């Protein structure tokens, strides 16, 4: 069960997806997605590759455009209005599978870039925040190095700190540990668990079931562009109802 045990029905929704549909050409990648995320809720999305889970969270900050339905983030409905999109992106941090740090900037500059240019924060203040976040992800001593000089696990922790620098209300994680060597997965998950315990609203696409058990309020299983099943982690793992969920869980739990 989640660390922050509370009655979620009384908390405000921060993300609402209503009847969201998306096609890549003829391919129906998201079909009729309805999802309500409460403030402080942690959601883990899993499913076979090509099931649309990455596309789903990338629609929330408009890296992908949905074609039908409504996405409301913090009361703002996503539209083609650039101001609207930028407003939502300021509130939503994202961590990618391939880190996507900027290789030509130092770690510190990677962190302070968005606060300085997007939030117009004074450089000194941005650097203080950046250093405190680097301390939180346990790599303050790497601040003046370049991303290429760090290990994968360190780079991903920097990427998390970079997203947190904007003081986001919501964090999206797109398979944050899939590109890592096995011995580095834990250091990244530890940072994410810590973040979850501090009450951040998180949507996380991952196959790390241990992480799901530890922090998730809800686990969502997607297949062929649909949400097939969702439940609290205990019930989800112990007692999957849908055949496709059972098959999928059988495959990934067998491997672990």
């Amino acid at each position: 069960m989640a660390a922050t045990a509370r009655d979620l029905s009384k908390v405000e929704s921060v993300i609402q997806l209503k009847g969201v549909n998306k096609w890549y050409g003829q391919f129906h990648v998201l079909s009729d997605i309805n999802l309500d995320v409460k403030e402080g809720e942690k959601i883990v999305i899993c499913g076979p590759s090509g099931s649309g889970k990455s596309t789903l969270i990338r629609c929330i900050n408009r890296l992908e455009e949905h074609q039908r339905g409504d996405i409301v983030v913090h009361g703002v409905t996503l539209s083609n209005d650039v101001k609207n999109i930028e407003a939502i992106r300021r509130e939503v941090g994202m961590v990618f599978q391939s880190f996507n740090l900027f290789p030509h900037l130092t770690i510190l500059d990677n962190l302070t870039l968005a606060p300085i240019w997007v939030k117009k924060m004074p450089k000194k203040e941005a650097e203080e925040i950046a250093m405190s976040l680097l301390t939180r992800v346990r790599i303050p001593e790497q601040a003046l190095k370049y991303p290429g000089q760090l290990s994968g696990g360190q780079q991903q922790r920097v990427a998390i700190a970079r997203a947190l620098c904007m003081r986001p209300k919501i964090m999206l994680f797109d398979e944050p540990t899939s590109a890592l060597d096995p011995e580095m997965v834990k250091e990244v998950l530890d940072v994410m668990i810590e973040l979850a315990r501090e009450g951040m609203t998180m949507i996380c696409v991952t196959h790390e079931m241990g992480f799901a058990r530890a922090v998730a309020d809800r686990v969502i299983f997607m297949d062929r562009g649909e949400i097939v099943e969702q439940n609290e982690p205990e019930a989800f793992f112990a007692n999957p109802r849908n055949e496709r969920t059972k098959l999928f869980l059988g495959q990934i739990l067998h491997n672990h």
Partner: protein
Amino acid sequence: MTDAMPVGDRKPLAPPVDETGALGWVRKNLFSSWGNGITTVVLIAAVLWVASWFLEWALFTANFTAATGAECRGGGACWALIREKFRYIFFGSFPYEQHWRPLFAVITMLAMLVLSADRRMWNWRLLVIWGVGSFITFLLMFGQIHIPLSLILFVALVCGGIGLTLRSALAAPSERMAYYALVGIGAVGLVLRMVGALPAWSIAIAPLSYVETSLWGGLPVTLILATYGLAFAFPYGILLALGRRSNLPLIKGLCVGFIELIRGVPLISLLIMASVMLPLFLPSGTTIDKFLRAQVAVILFAGAYIAEVIRGGLQSLPKGQFEAADAMGLNYPQKTLLIILPQALRVVIPPLINTFIGFFKDTSLVLIIGIFDFLNTANQALVDPNWAGFPGEVYLFAAFVYFIFCFSMSRYSKYLEFELNKGTRR
């Protein structure tokens, strides 16, 4: 990581003796087999033979002092010709007693280029260097400069505009007020000037005698065409490359059309069009200086090529870089200036400098439309009947000067690659 694993007390072995040191190197690389040894000996002999023949001609039997071409005949190289003609080759028909002016103009431009090559200058200082350097260069070349009021107003408008777009995030309120003031003064002034409310004032700076562009020649002409050609073509090429990748079909279409059109025609035809055909289309009475027309033709041509080089760099960036910048909420100019271009330009330094070197040499094609660049003045030096018959010496000398410039650019490219990748190397 590796030192955590115990490997015992084994000491690292020294490398085998015959592979180190000068002797080892020679043995390994030059005489590793009979075939290799023979090739080495033959090649060294050939190089020595050519070099000794060249030195004999160019130095030992060369004539440095002859007063006419006739005295030169029979011996080696006739460097006396260069001695006699070097001022014409370097400065063309510029009034002889005023040759110090193009000389200092060349020195100013070289200083400007050397200063801009330093990475520490890549900020507002670059604008100051180019502003001051260009002013001195053209003041020396023309002798007199008239700055019309409308130009001053236009510069105020552009400076204010650039300040507002680039520094809006960081500027203090007072700084921002200054930009608004510049834009306001510039815009209002230009409108007033256009409706005729402001007179056609101009500031005249005229310390020297006026020398028109048709008298310019030699090295300053080549340097001006190449320096300003590339200085304008570079930002213009960046805009074309960005436009070509735009999502807006109209902008994309225009950029693709322009690039393909320019790339599809030879520079010579563009120069001839600029010099012969363009005046036919202009209303009678208006003339645009021939030199300026050639300069614009070079800029347009170089821009299209530079755009394609830069597009290569833009395409080499992983999609994740664009997405990460988007996800942070950076807008298009911020994303382009802070994330995309710094990386894309780094990747394309070698092909970019390659293009620059090519264009430095291509400026010599302006001789087709009767502009006396360095190669053309060298050519003209051969016409003197007193000194007929020594084209080799003159072209060798011209080639030597071109080589110095091109080789410097090539070395600079290497230095720049090293400098910019310092941090990102593992």
